[in-house]
């Protein structure tokens, strides 16, 4: 089918109307010629022979009558070996290469090949005559820490027979390594690179499974109280300055997954710079290699064009699904999904659609649901397992969780980590409000015991609010003990000292051990004479527990510190 052409008939912000000849497809990519540059854009609506395009660049200088070429293809990314360690913009342009070409600024209309055409050591795993379907892999190449599977494009229909396949050895990524043919006689030449539309979820697996294995973040309040499962979804809403991004950075460093994809969507460029400078120097404790080796960054910061921001989360999730299909656990961190929703709102406004709540489009909820539903744990055809876990931050206007994006997100995620201004102002880190938040996943500790600990937190909180009215004098000794126990959980377990190298990231074993001691303390009855006595006891116990928290497992003092905690409270037990 020959590609259609057209010309501009109108410009409104980043939306351009185009009259076209021939056939066009909704969500097809077109290029608008402005002088010598061609601006990438996507058809988002077709009415009465006019296609409305959202332009992924600034629209200054476009005039009525400018030529438009359509490509006949949906907005796509290139998938293949060499994605890891890279930094892309929302449309998969590698930013360092762009910088080499254009210097300090992001000049519009400049697009760079996302994957370098370098040589990879290819090993075929299928032979001529084998039958393959979409998603099967016919060869592998080593990519950093992983064996990268070279797969049959996910969009192909039906069964195909391998006509020829390259032998073991070095091949360039753009070179044809496999030729396949179907029953109708259509022949396809496959290279190591697949072009995949970003808004189409990648299939090619046997079945989807229930996420049941915890994804360890080394943050106690998450792993113990509000767990996230591999293949699950969670969201982190919070007002500005509550530490959403800090929490995500720590998760991206410590999560026990194979690949981490960071989608910096509409946030500060400075935050991405921190990752860019820090990650290459940090070592992944699991592999001993630089953290960058397992990381891909998609960076469409707040001042970059809005339409590309909308695309960036899809670009990121498509890459996540691709690595999932190699049997890897992938974590996608999107910061922030509110900016993505705002990008949708801007386009919806230009299309003059009837607005919903706070002018967000009516399809906001289904788009958010569609995005989070691309997470999941799957069993692949060869019996191995892979997963995509999605964690998104939400930046609610005014810090009010009642707004549409937060509410739409809460409907579809499996865990909710709400950050509170009170906790962050009080310098309590992490600022997750454990009483408001929830998780539907199973964590590293028995559910029954966690619930018991929760009940102390909840009752402690009730006593605290009661005490504000009746004062300490009006509170019974028993209630006061419960209050102190609630505070105790918060200060020694929920909070972590992010500056302390030991306390900042806590292993599963250590969490289990610390929790068992905490559990023991909570369920002990102590004999106290008065409230002063209670306060003094818990202050001392807290100090000892915190000292133990900051002592590493392999430190000879660790055992001693633990004993100091145990002996102190066991003595006072009734």
């Amino acid at each position, binding site marked *: 089918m020959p590609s259609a052409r057209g010309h501009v008939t109108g*410009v409104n912000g980043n939306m351009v109307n185009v009259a076209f000849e021939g056939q066009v497809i909704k969500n097809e990519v077109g290029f608008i010629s402005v002088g010598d540059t061609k601006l990438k854009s996507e058809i988002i609506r077709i009415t009465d022979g006019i296609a409305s395009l959202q332009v992924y660049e600034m629209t200054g200088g476009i005039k009525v009558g400018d030529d438009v070429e359509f490509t006949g293809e949906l907005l796509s990314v290139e998938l293949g070996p060499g994605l890891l360690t890279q930094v892309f913009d929302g449309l998969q342009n590698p930013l360092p290469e762009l910088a080499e070409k254009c210097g*300090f600024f992001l000049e519009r209309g400049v697009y760079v090949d996302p994957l370098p055409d370098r040589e990879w050591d290819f090993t075929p795993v299928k032979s001529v005559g084998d039958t393959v379907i979409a998603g099967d892999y016919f060869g592998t190449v080593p990519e950093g820490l992983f064996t990268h599977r070279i797969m049959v494009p996910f969009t192909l229909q039906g069964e195909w027979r391998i006509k020829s396949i390259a032998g073991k050895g070095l091949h360039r990524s753009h070179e044809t390594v496999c030729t396949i043919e179907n029953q109708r006689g259509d022949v396809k030449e496959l290279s190591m690179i697949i072009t995949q539309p970003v808004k189409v979820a990648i299939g090619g697996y046997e079945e989807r499974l229930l996420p049941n294995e915890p994804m360890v973040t080394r943050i106690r309040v998450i792993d113990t109280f509000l767990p996230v499962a591999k293949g699950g979804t969670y969201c982190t809403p919070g007002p500005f300055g509550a530490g959403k991004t800090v929490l995500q950075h720590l998760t991206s460093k410590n999560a026990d997954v194979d690949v981490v994809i960071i989608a910096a969507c509409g946030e500060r460029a400075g935050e991405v710079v921190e990752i860019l400078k820090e990650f290459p120097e940090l070592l992944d404790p699991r592999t001993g290699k630089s953290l960058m080796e397992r990381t891909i960054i998609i960076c469409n910061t707040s001042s970059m064009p809005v339409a590309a921001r909308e695309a960036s989360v899809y670009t990121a999730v498509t890459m996540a699904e691709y690595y999932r299909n190699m049997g890897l656990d992938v974590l996608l961190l999107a910061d922030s999904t509110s900016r993505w929703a705002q990008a949708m709102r801007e386009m919806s*406004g230009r299309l003059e659609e009837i607005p919903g709540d706070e002018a967000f489009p009516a399809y906001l909820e289904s788009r958010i649901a569609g995005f989070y539903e691309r997470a999941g744990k799957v069993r692949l055809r060869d019996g191995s397992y892979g997963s995509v876990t999605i964690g998104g931050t939400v930046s609610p206007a005014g810090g009010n969780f009642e707004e549409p994006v937060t509410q739409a997100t809460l409907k579809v995620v499996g865990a909710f980590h709400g950050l509170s201004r009170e906790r962050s102002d009080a310098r309590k880190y992490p600022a997750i409000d454990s009483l408001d938040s929830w998780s539907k996943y199973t964590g590293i500790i028995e559910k029954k015991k966690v619930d018991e600990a929760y009940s102390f937190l909840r009752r402690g909180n009730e006593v605290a609010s009661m005490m504000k009215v009746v004062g300490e004098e009006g509170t019974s000794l028993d209630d006061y003990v419960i209050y102190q126990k609630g505070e105790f959980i918060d200060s020694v377990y929920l909070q972590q000292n992010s500056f302390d190298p030991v306390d900042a990231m806590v292993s599963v074993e250590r969490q289990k051990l610390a929790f068992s001691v905490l559990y023991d303390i909570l369920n002990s009855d102590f004999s106290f004479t008065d409230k002063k006595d209670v306060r003094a006891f818990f202050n001392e116990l807290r100090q000892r527990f915190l000292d133990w928290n900051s002592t590493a497992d392999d430190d000879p003092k660790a055992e001693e510190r633990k004993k100091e905690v145990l002996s102190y409270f066991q003595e006072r037990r009734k």
Partner: protein
Amino acid sequence: MQKVYTKIESIVGNVITVRAEGVRNQDLVEVTTSQGTGYANVIKLDGDKVSLQVFKGGQGVSTGDSVRFLGVPMRVSYSEDLLGRVFDGAGKPRDNGPELEGNMIDIGGPSVNPSKRIMPKNMIRTGIPMIDVFNTLVESQKLPIFSVSGEPYNELLARIAMQSDVDIIVLGGMGLKYDDYLFFRNVLEKSGAMSRTIMFIHTASDPTVECTLVPDLALAVAERFALDGKRVLVLLTDMTNFCDAEKEMAITMDQVPSNRGYPGDLYSTLASRYEKAVDFEGAGSVTILGVTTMPGDDVTHPVPDNTGYITEGQYYLRGGHIEPFGSLSRLKQNVNKDTRSDHRSLMDAMIKLYAAYKDSLEKRSMGFMMTDWDEKLLKYGALFEEKLMDLSVNIPLEEALDEGWRILASCFEPNETGLRSDLIETYWPKEK
């Protein structure tokens, strides 16, 4: 492209439409009315119908007035000649100097490639202890001053403009009272800082459209100076007026409002301005300090709320001084480790004690008995406010730190301050 059109089809608010061909989006247009010649720019194209936003406003425009398309986008002249000059929101001289027409540069240019950014590492000294000591301003930072009407935020900006150790100051005034404009001009001229200052001033009585252009003009010029190796500080006051002007424009254009009448792209609009703050490797830097007045002292109002998500911290100006609580410079830890060994610890200790002073103050106002400790805190608080918090204090960082130690020494015993012993040994004032 110099054809003149004389049939204006509609005039709605500040937006006029004409029928013309070959017009490019965002191009500059000259509109000649009975009141003289002014400018407009193209904001929407629909077939041969061109919508123009008239800088001087639609008032007094006749359907028979002439419109000439200049074929270039909005630009501003850039050269050393800008220094010491004052312009309006359309880039025309507001002082008696000549119009500058050489070396025109585009405004609202592309954003900086994130991979070319570097970690901010240089402190900007302002001589104001509440900034230098407690929430250090860092080169390439973007920081708003959250305040309310009536607070001396313009006085604060003027002090920073006079005292800070940068090469060039670009002041963007939006919706300024004429008195405030004169105040800025007089203060800067008197202090001699005018020779390194460029002012783009939109006063409250000027046309709304020009208000929306001020940040772009100021930042385009600042960016150029930075690329030429200068350390530039951009002061923007008041960004709430800018947002209100954007709101007015959006509503005129029949855009669907999102929150309290503000357009849905408010976040992107603000971000594309604030993100111009940058440190160019091997060249200069742009630092942005803006004023955001909070209507009704409400930080959840869309303007301060969106600003807070974009910027790297905020200063709260309340009761005539920068609040020690709530104010935050997110980048301060990048620089305050290298200033003086006592900087961080002293900062923390003094803030903790000040918080304790506030508690004592509350206790006293409720009529409770004052202990010895409370009395010490009350003395400390009063000294702290007088010697460090007062906006008229102008001392370098080192002197401010020494002053901090003197205040502590005159109120407390060393072990009451919670400071590390080695610091006390080095810095605690010996004579008494």
